[in-house]
């Protein structure tokens, strides 16, 4: 099941040219650009790891595309996303975030229903990939 998170995720995967154009947009706006990766696809997973430091004071997307290529070389079997952080007063938050790399096979999620008091039902989503230890989740691809 194809994971959808952040901007553009209902579109076909962005090409590198399209990614570079988005990154350039972020830089032109003065946002700090980050590359993050994870192998836990849960939508509430906020603990993505950073590839290097946030990148700011850059003029051109080429340097970030180079970092992305390096990140893919190491973590090509995981999810990688790019985000743009706006530090200006009043915003101080992530303005854009989109996926730029995903595992070749995405086994998707199991939905657990737990019957609780009354007729209430509690739902939880469980990523099949997450049953395996971190770092080995998509390793055999």
């Amino acid at each position: 099941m194809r994971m959808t998170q952040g901007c553009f995720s209902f579109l076909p995967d962005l090409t590198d040219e399209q990614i570079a154009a988005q990154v350039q947009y972020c830089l032109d706006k003065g946002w700090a650009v980050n590359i993050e990766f994870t192998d836990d696809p849960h939508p509430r997973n906020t603990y993505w790891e950073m590839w290097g430091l946030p990148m700011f004071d850059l003029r051109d997307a080429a340097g970030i595309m180079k970092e992305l290529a390096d990140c893919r070389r190491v973590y090509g079997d995981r999810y990688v996303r790019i985000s743009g952080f706006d530090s200006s007063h009043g915003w101080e938050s992530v303005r854009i975030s989109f996926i730029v790399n995903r595992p070749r096979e995405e086994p998707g999620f199991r939905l657990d229903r737990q019957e609780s008091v009354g007729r209430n039902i509690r739902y939880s989503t469980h990523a099949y990939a997450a049953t395996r230890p971190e770092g080995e989740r998509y390793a055999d691809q």
Partner: protein
Amino acid sequence: MTQTQEQIRETPLETVDLRHEFADLGIGAVLDQLDSELIGLKPVKTRIREIASLLLVERIRQKMALATTFPTLHMSFTGNPGTGKTTVALRMAGILHRLGFVRRGHVISVTRDDLVGQYIGHTAPKTKEILKKAMGGVLFIDEAYYLYRPENERDYGQEAIEILLQVMEQQREDLVVILAGYGDRMEKFFQSNPGFRSRIAHHIDFPDYSDAELLWIAELMLQQQNYRFSPEAREAFIRYIAARKVQPLFSNARSIRNALDRIRLRQANRIVAKLDRTLSADDVMSIEAGDVLASRVFTKGAGAAGEGR
């Protein structure tokens, strides 16, 4: 559908209107500005015009689908201190930007300390950080020969050099590198680093300025700051140039700029010394002979130390 659109876009042009192309890019204006704002530097200006023409033709060839590879644009600027290398590098970035050979046209100016780290594992991230900043523009490396320290075989400069060489080769479309430094030392640097020499397409040598050119530069600088020499002060400054030139640490136009800064200081002192009067614009713009002649350059003989006061 997109296929046909792409085909249309990629159809090579058969003819190009040269004048139109030239005017469209506005490089004429940049070159004229270079001529009028920089005194002297004849060989440099000629070389830059040549490079601009080459790139203009290259651009047209690309439009006609004739060019096969992206041209190598890395350059080396050699010349004595204060001969305008940094100034010209900034202009060069503008020209390359207008011609479309760099995407943004900014200049990141660095020296060894910005690229080379202090301990193992420090250099690569430092160099890469600078390269990322320079992407889309020009990376200007002043006194490039300090990157290479043959006397210390474990010097981290070598690591920076290797990263630079790789990027200069593989990301020619993303970044233009300009190396600058004094002629003889650059020559030695290239001898021990043939990788650099082979990646550099244009070597430009900056000559020293003549006395007359230095005077012009002084007058241009004063004019830009709304000052002017009185006739006697001008005469005095001609003598100042002759005296300063033979003293140590003379650095061409920069020495002129420094001298003018001190002259303005003395002028201000002279004016403020007499408080009981009204001043005209002429009074505060005018540099008098005394402001120039008070320089220590006149009292020291040739061979005395430093940037004289």
